[in-house]
């Protein structure tokens, strides 16, 4: 079975590729804005197309589906059922799915599920990294403030920490705030 990916970046595509290849699905990745989609679809006859929801090539796919009923077209329903996962695929992963008529709904559903869970795990990782960022930033600013105090006033690391703590207490602010201010203005107040 052939699946064509359009405008889905390589790093994402490569990862789904290894999963799907083990199921015997041939993935063709296609990522060139100016390429001729008519030619590609005509030559390859993909049974399923996964395309970036915002790809400008989607309007061309709509046209292809009208020109030839045997080309893949937008999947709105799986069998007779409205499928929530199709909307989630677009909203969460930014991917829209096109398929030819005789692909069994169950197969499409699995493909959507695999793709979704893959992108979900990537998104979760990304979210976790993002959540860490403020903490990392705070440590960095504290370290450079300490280094600044040590270098400028010849104090020890411990004394520098103490100095920052005292200023923070006196001003009723967090030590990170005081450190940031020190780095931005060169003064404690």
């Amino acid at each position, binding site marked *: 079975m052939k699946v064509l990916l359009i405008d889905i970046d390589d790093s994402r595509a490569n990862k789904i590729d290894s999963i799907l290849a083990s199921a015997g699905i041939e993935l063709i990745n296609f990522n060139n804005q100016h390429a001729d989609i008519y030619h590609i679809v005509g030559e390859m006859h993909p049974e399923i197309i996964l395309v970036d929801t915002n790809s400008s090539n989607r309007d061309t796919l709509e046209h292809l589906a009208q020109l*030839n009923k*045997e080309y893949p077209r937008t999947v709105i329903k799986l069998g007779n059922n409205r499928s929530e996962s199709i909307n989630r695929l677009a909203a969460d992963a930014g991917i829209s799915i096109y398929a030819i008529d005789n692909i069994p709904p169950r197969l499409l559903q699995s493909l959507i599920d695999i793709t979704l869970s893959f992108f979900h795990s990537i998104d979760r990782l990304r979210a976790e990294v993002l959540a860490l960022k403020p903490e990392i930033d705070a440590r960095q600013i504290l370290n450079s403030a300490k280094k600044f105090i040590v270098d400028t006033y010849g104090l020890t690391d411990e004394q520098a920490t103490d100095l920052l703590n005292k200023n923070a207490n006196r001003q009723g602010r967090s030590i990170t705030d005081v450190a940031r201010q020190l780095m931005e203005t060169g003064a404690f107040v």
Partner: protein
Amino acid sequence: MPRYHSLFTRTISAIALTTSCVAIAAEPEKEELKFGFIKLTDMAPLAVAYEKGYFEDEGLYVSLEAQANWKVLLDRVIDGELDGAHMLAGQPLGATIGFGTQAHIITAFSMDLNGNGITVSNSVWEEMKKNIPRQADGKPVHPIKADALKPVIDKYKSEGKPFKMGMVFPVSTHNYELRYWLAAGGIHPGYYAPLKGHTSGTIDAEALLSVTPPPQMPATLEAGTIYGYCVGEPWNQQAVFKGIGVPVITDYEIWKNNPEKVFGVSNEWAEKYPNTHIAVVKAMIRAAKWLDDNNNANRPEAVKILSKSSYVGADYDVIANSMTGTFEYEKGDKREVPDFNVFFRHNATYPYYSDAIWYLTQMRRWGQITEYKPDSWYMDIAKKVYRPDIYRQAAEELIAEGKVSTSEFPNFASETGYKPPQSEFIDNITYDGRKPNEYISKFSIGLKAKDLLK
């Protein structure tokens, strides 16, 4: 800040209205709205309603969001992510009769008339030119008919080169205008093949039409993938500026004052938020009026707004070339086309049933509608999708508020929604919206009323 300002003015006007008028603006059910658009100059009524504060005057807080393609724009209106959008006239009709996506989409506001052009590559133009008579000053006689293109296509064909041209979407105005122009010049643009079993949608085609996104048209032409295209502005004038192609005709010359984009919402949304819908149409009527006021006097300001990257994001000069009443064909051949973009005059914003039916006739003519439908079907679909009743309420509120005058609108009491028969088409064929089947059968190229694709 703007919120307070508009609450204040709204209170004042509400007091003034209760004493004197029948049409009173009701509170919108939903105040925060998100509308989608495609980066084309005819999204102007949305940008102007926003920038001039007309949405706020109606108590609406609108954000405008550019969409990457027509398909996603429609999908987002259907699933409610967008409250409404700048749409191709064929989109609400196509969706309602079930092309691609089945959804009931309606429109109560037409966004503009005309505004498209057909451009061919420099080398095609050089060949075409030989077949076009000259005026006294040496410039080609306009309008240029596709008759001049026919020998060029025949030559390409004899060399084994299929003649490819671009347009923007299967149900786009551009598709139907390009087909109309080609067919009027004896060039068959091919039928659609919506029936299963057909192997090619290019049945009988002498020119092969393909979809290319508007901003990519000039580059695709330059790359030689297509030899010409039909698109809205600024993408025809862009070809002139870049020296890669020559616009040969505007759609104004193909069908004088043809309806172009519409503002579409889902029927479900319209039923849920009727007052909001009226408020939106009011703001857009004022924007359209501003765009045409005093003989296009505000157009330079409009061009400045549109050139911002959040709207169309093309150079001021490129947008101004068509928006300020002129159109440049071959480089240096700049002609007056004062009605190239019409936003308000000639009742441009009124959603005529006959406009809807014209699009349906073309869908039938080219096989997108596969089989014979009685005249009553065309009228029923038009009524289901085009909503002059909502437009009328919006206009009457504006009249009552003294913001517009009665004379700027059709006579609502007697208006039927059907324009009188029109004959200002490039092939002089008369269109009467009340007789769609008779109309379809008048063309020598295209399916007749009862034809089926074999």
